[in-house]
């Protein structure tokens, strides 16, 4: 199941986490949230990002932080 979890903290910070998306769609699917909420200050792809797509592991999107 595609799921977006948004933690809206008491200090005004917003953390967005996605699960269940295939390929790079999680970033695309949450872009609308970031666009209307403000400015993205941090992004980290978590291990599930490195899925095999057409028998090829896409590593060029590797981004540990920033």
């Amino acid at each position, binding site marked *: *199941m*595609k*799921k*977006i*979890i*948004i*933690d*809206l*903290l*008491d*200090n*005004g*910070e*917003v*953390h*967005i*986490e*996605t*699960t*269940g*998306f*295939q*390929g*790079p*769609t*999680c*970033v695309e699917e*949450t872009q*609308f*949230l*970031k666009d*209307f*909420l*403000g*400015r*993205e*200050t*941090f*992004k*980290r*792809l*978590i291990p*599930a*990002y490195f*899925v095999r797509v057409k028998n090829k592991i896409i590593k060029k999107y590797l981004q540990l932080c920033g």
Partner: protein
Amino acid sequence: MSHISKVEVEIQSLDDLKKACQRLGLTFQEGQTSYKWYGRWVGDAPLPEGVKQEDLGKCAHAIHVPGADYEVGIVKTSNKYQLLWDSWSAGKLEKVLGKDAGLLKQAYAIERVKRESKLKGYRIQEKRIDNGIRLIMTL
């Protein structure tokens, strides 16, 4: 694939800010062009981006906070709105709004996410967590 992002909230929608005020029991004062504050810049904190000293105290709208002596001013700058307010403890705003008006930004973000996500067809669950509110959106 998954990822984690952090977003700094910017106020872009007055409608959602009004809903956030309702959520927190604050009063949105449409068209009020000044807000209550200490009244004199003492330089104990940096001025908000794009705001000059002579702009302080002036606004396009304001927010009245029950129990506080000071108010929040709302100023439009380019494509967003800025919240101007005096965090000096005597004004009692920080007690209600949290540090850096975090609770007001949180309430705004909740209203904004709910409205926009429904348009996209997401189902939304809201629950309280230790340090905030969690919205779970599912398709």
